[in-house]
């Protein structure tokens, strides 16, 4: 348990620092690469909670596909490689105030509700996910696959030149 807490602490520190860099760095490409660190850290947290399949999906879909999409988006919109002074707007302080207020409220509510609750993860295997996905969650699974198809066709229809 101690080792898990140490690993959690290291991962959490790295994730929060990288997330902070994602929203503050002035370089668009670097922000996307910091996002990779946050996503990998989230995957490691899933592994720490003994949920293996979601870790694999996180690596394949997020780190493999979504980040590549982001880099393509950056490239297609000709973001200057290097320092770009114009990526923040002028309501920074108001935004920081809102975020601080929100984190304060959430931490207060969560520590009130789950003050001393311990979590003892049991391994959730990929076969459990498959059994559950194709029995109890079959209709949501089909709906989400149709939605994914519609979204991708829509993305092509929006972005193509005609």
């Amino acid at each position: 348990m101690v080792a898990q807490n140490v690993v959690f602490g290291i991962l959490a520190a790295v994730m929060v620092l990288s997330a902070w860099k994602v929203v503050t760095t002035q370089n668009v490409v670097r922000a996307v690469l910091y996002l990779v660190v946050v996503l990998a850290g989230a995957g490691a947290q899933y592994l720490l909670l003994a949920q293996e399949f979601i870790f694999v999906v996180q690596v394949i879909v997020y780190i493999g596909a979504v980040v590549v999409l982001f880099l393509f988006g950056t490239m297609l919109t000709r973001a200057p490689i290097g320092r770009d002074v114009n990526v923040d707007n002028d309501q920074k302080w108001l935004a920081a105030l809102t975020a601080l207020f929100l984190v304060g409220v959430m931490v207060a509510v969560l520590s009130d509700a789950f003050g001393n609750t311990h979590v003892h993860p049991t391994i959730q295997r990929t076969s459990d996910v498959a059994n559950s996905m194709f029995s109890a969650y079959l209709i949501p699974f089909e709906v989400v696959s149709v939605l994914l198809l519609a979204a991708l066709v829509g993305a092509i229809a929006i972005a193509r030149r005609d």
Partner: protein
Amino acid sequence: MLLNQFLFLAAVLFCIGVYGVLARRNAVLVLASIELMLNAVNINLVAFGAYRHTIAGQIFALFVITIAAAEVGVGLAIVVLIFRNRASISLDDADLMKG
């Protein structure tokens, strides 16, 4: 492990995402901040699933990942279209529908 350590991490990540959405002007970076928020929600779902020893948390996180992938695809297509029409992806310039 305390349940709260995961929930606090998710809360902090979510609020960093909120800050990013509010303070960024570049549309691609706003989408990246939205990804941060969705990941925070996923950590919450998986943590609660592990706490209650149920598979449902993982399944819901999978659905969230699917929707996030679709959202990024459509969002970046819209950003590319805005860039093609207005030669800028600054969200302050995209104010055509402002009253």
